[in-house]
């Protein structure tokens, strides 16, 4: 009888220890997969949404879904599996957003005449990097303030200030040279 009890008890401990161990292994695997794929998943989410905050949300949603399905998803199916999760979230988001007033037919986009003084100038100032041109365009073509540019680009307001200063300096030199 005594022996039986001991066996039962150590069996339960074993089950408990192995489930703790199993969860630990799952978390470690998730961390490894996160380090491996987070950049690619974020970049993909950004291409589908064009918004940093949504790219951040959808990337974490995708990894949370992976955590829920970790036992069923083999490493070889990644990052494609995560991309599919992100894509479904993005399609759903745009379906909802396109019904909103700002994106509906009520706000037609400009019929451009094929010319732009700012873009001509930007292409002449060869020292500018994409990040400078983006800050200048969002600031001066779209009229965004630094906070809005920060939300759009993921840059800090300090970096934006520095990019605008450098960009304007180069434009000025281009125009006065």
């Amino acid at each position, binding site marked *: 009888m005594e022996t039986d009890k001991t066996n039962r008890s150590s069996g339960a401990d074993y089950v408990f220890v192995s489930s703790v161990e199993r969860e630990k292994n799952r978390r470690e695997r998730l961390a490894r997969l996160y380090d491996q794929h987070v950049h690619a998943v974020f970049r993909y989410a950004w291409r589908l949404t064009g918004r940093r905050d949504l790219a951040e949300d959808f990337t*974490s949603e995708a990894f949370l879904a992976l955590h829920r399905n970790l036992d069923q998803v083999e490493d070889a199916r990644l990052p494609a599996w995560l991309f599919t999760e992100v894509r479904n979230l*993005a399609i759903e988001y745009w379906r909802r957003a396109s019904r909103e007033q700002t994106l509906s037919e009520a706000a*037609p986009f400009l019929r451009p005449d094929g010319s732009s*003084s700012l873009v001509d100038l930007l292409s002449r100032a060869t020292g500018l990097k994409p990040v400078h041109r983006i800050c200048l365009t969002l600031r001066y073509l779209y009229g965004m303030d630094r906070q809005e540019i920060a939300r759009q680009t993921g840059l800090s307001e300090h970096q934006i200030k*520095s990019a605008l*200063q450098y960009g304007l300096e180069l*434009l000025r*030199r281009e125009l006065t040279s």
Partner: protein
Amino acid sequence: MKETKRAANNMPHEDPEHQERLLMVETGIDPAVWREQGHPPPSLLVASREDVLPQPLAERVTSHIELCPSCTRLLEDLLDPDVACPTLGEITRIRRRLPMPSPPQRPWKTLALIALTLVTAALSIVAVRTLSSGPISPQFVAPMPPGPPAPPGLVFRIPVEPAPLKLPPASTLAWRSQDGGPDQAYLVELGQALKPYREGRYREAAVRLQSLASQYPQSVEAPFYAGVSHLLAGDALFALEWLTKKPLVRSHPLYDDQLWYRAAALEQTGQWAEARDLLRQLCKLSGGYQQKACQLSKR
């Protein structure tokens, strides 16, 4: 009136507003004329490239882009691998939402890193402000009425190409792991962190190399390539911070490279005189940058 003039005089030269004023005064162009309504929001431009927008929205955005050079240019820039890359802050926030063990870094290290970043940023602002009121950049002392444009001798346009990869052979590593052998783990991780650098994804490279630099405080390659990555990604202030972090000894293979890229970062943050001093220093060294540095500094 008096108030306005004083405000203008006190305006630090790194302010974009000040650059706007200079632009208006020197070229007669008011940036307000660039403002146009009716371009699709940047998020729609980006998403229009993937098959996720419902019709007819997708069609409307695509036909606008086809006719609009501004949106075409903006879209190209937004799709740049560096711009699309997550920042360290974004990576950290996503990680916090997931049930995972914390990253290996100890909390005090993270705090120290944040504190260091803030202090360096503050110092660089102070440095730029001090310079702007010093005798070296007279055009920034009294912006209204405007002084002469940046002195020609202080305009270099230092070209910034990706720095060549110079990795330490295991036997020459400056420090040893606890068992006395060379720290192979560092070399392996450095190789991994440099992968996005080799592939031209500089913002991602900067994030990875920064994190490696804080994990291996004695490393010199990680902060150097983090600085170069920031510069290539267009973040000159961060570049300067990382390129100043570990001053190298003259015999180090990256010594000249560090001076060159630091000069470029100094120029891009408006510290022309310091940039010129570094170029002159490089001009005296018989390294790979000598010719370029001499040409630029004698301009």
